[in-house]
């Protein structure tokens, strides 16, 4: 269970006792998808950045199965985020982009290489392993990012509007991938504006209002 309790964040230094800009409290059990809605600027990306370890919270508690995550750097948190864009390194071919998720030093075992090959075939990218991201369509790029997230096997998946701007068929393919992960026990936090995405994936939904989850 991901337990987030009074996780606060200020964009500027604030005095003790002052109400923080953001304060998040929620719980997310394994295998469940929680959707977070909210207008632009409401703090959706801030929430994800705090969970993933890209921002330092002002206070609060964040644990996964009782293990404190706040003192850990992003790569040790067991969390993978898929963003709306900029998910890939533009100068590296597809398979290295995926491979970096499995082995940060790119010393891939034969088994890992085989998993990448099979994964690419599974998401319909067979034969595109040595393409650069600039040579792929938006949907293909997102499939690469999602495949990497899935192959990493993190127990927590954060999705920051990853389906925005994709056509219906591509979105349905990506939804199926996420559903498979949920079935395998991965907890998913989905941030989206799109009702279709939320209805297709979310088990619960909440709304961000004035920096608080309601």
């Amino acid at each position, binding site marked *: 269970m991901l337990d987030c309790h009074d996780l606060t964040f200020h*964009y500027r230094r604030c005095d003790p006792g002052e109400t923080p*800009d953001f304060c998040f409290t929620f719980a997310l059990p394994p295998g469940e998808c929680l959707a977070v809605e909210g207008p632009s600027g409401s703090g959706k990306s801030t929430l994800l950045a705090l969970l993933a370890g*890209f921002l330092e919270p002002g206070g609060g508690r964040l644990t996964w199965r009782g293990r404190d995550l706040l003192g850990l*750097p992003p790569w*040790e948190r067991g969390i993978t985020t898929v963003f709306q864009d900029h998910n890939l390194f533009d100068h590296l071919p597809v398979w290295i982009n995926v491979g*970096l998720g499995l082995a*940060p030093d790119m010393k891939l075992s034969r088994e890992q290489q085989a998993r990448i090959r099979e994964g690419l075939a599974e998401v319909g990218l067979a034969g595109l392993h040595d393409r650069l991201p600039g040579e792929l369509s938006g949907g293909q790029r997102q499939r690469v990012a999602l495949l990497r997230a899935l192959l990493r096997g993190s127990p927590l998946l954060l999705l920051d509007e990853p389906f925005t701007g994709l056509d219906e068929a591509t979105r349905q393919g990506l939804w199926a991938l996420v559903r498979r992960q949920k079935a395998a026990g991965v907890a998913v936090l989905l941030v989206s504006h799109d009702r279709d995405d939320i209805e297709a994936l979310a088990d619960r939904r909440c709304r961000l209002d004035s920096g608080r989850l309601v």
Partner: protein
Amino acid sequence: MAERRGPVTPVSRWATLSRWPLGWGLAAFTAVVGLGLGSLGALLWQARGLHPAMLWEEPWLAAVLRFTLWQASLSTLLSIGLAVPVALALARRPRFPGRHLLLRAMELSLVIPSLIALFGLVAVHGRRGWAAPLRDWLGALPEDYLYGLSGIVLAHVFYNLPLAARLMLQALEEAPAAQWRLAGQLGLTRVALWRALEWPRLAPLVPRLAALVFTLCFTSFAIVMTLGGGPNSSTLEVALYQAMKFDHDLALAALLALTQLTICLSLWLLALSRGGTPRLAVSGRPGRPPGRWWRRDAGGLSRFTDSLWLAGLAALLLPPLVAVLVAGIVGLPELPQGASLAPAALRSLVMALGAGLGALALAVALLAGSQWLRASRRPFEALVMEGGGQLILVIPALVLGTGLFLLLRPRLGSGWEGYALVVLVNAFMALPFAMQVVRGALPGLSAPEQRLADQFGVRGRARVRWLIWPRLRRPLALALAYAMTLSLGDFSVIALFGSPSAPTLPMLLFQQLGGYRWQGAAATAMLLLALVALVFALLDRLTRRPPRHAWTFLPPRERRDARLS
């Protein structure tokens, strides 16, 4: 709710800042600024008993100063003034037969050693050059227009107009394609396009570009030595050389050097106080034309005027370059007979490699240190560190060489020590250019990339290997090639500290030109040009993106099949 002031993903809080870059940066900064200011200090110390009033009281010195200012101003005005319509014409016409060739010729003229360019200019514009029949037919030009003010300005324009036009074109091509599309859709007229798109792109560039061109023309040595040199067409740089080399008048040399420095520095301060921070180096990547969208200003009269500007540019650039190639091919049989050629070429290459690597190491150290300071939120210190490398731009080579000579005089003997000094000065002189090329690539990872790298734990050596080095290797190679080329073509510093009996290729070329040994000079020029081309080709090949099959992770058998196919 509070308003967000920065991006959601600032510089990673997990990125531990190693202090190595700062250490290297400080070491390089101390070396560059210390030697730069030290050489200036030595000059000041030497100039103690001098009266600056000499500059206007001594008629010949006043004439030299007037001529230096006049030729540099005229060359700058013509180079920048003519570069604007040329760059606009090239931007307006993204596709025409010969455009690629013209751009390559412009880039070649940026790196070609000045003595080679002079050789080509003499072959075309000399008394019996290719242009002689046209000149006689026109009857408006004197026979010796290549010598004196007109020749010096022509040579400076030959060198600097392509530089200015190429940088302006780069600035225009860097405008987002959407802006050009929008302009096409709105049907903006020529004037409207100029005001809305073209001038805003050029305006930040012009002050610094003008300062750069003025400094290059003001401190130009080989061109003035060859095409001027008489009492009526001598510059401060040449007078400085003569004071050092022939009159051994160090006090006069110091006064001239300080005068030169004061003028260049004032101009740079003026230029730096205006405009943004434009890139003053031509990108290694081929420029991307704005696109094929319809431009309202591309038809009508501009068809004719653009053709005129581009034909003029081709007439200025191509004949001297072709003349060097033709004369070089004719002079090829001379190559085996030139006993001094091989040692001179080897000497040049070794010195260029030393200077190039030195410039590159200093550039990377300064930029890495400055980036470290910026990441530690010390922007002012970062600016000072980066500015240290650019300081050399306003200290002319001979000033630096003279100052260092004065500093090291008790110890500086002859022979290899003089050559080591040349390598050092050349490395310093190439530093600002190397920094300009590397600067764009060194910041490395963008905020989203850093976020990804942190997420996957790509750190340390793996981060350098996979994320930083692939972006750096091409700019580093280009910077090394530029620095080596500058050193390969150097004639000013080597003329002061080199030995005529052990010449480098430019020295040998100058000796041959002075002795009217045209065949030998042609062969030497050709060899020098070939070395420049070799340096660029070799570095380009060594740092090209790996072929795709080297990156694939297919099983060996499939990989072999893919390679065969």
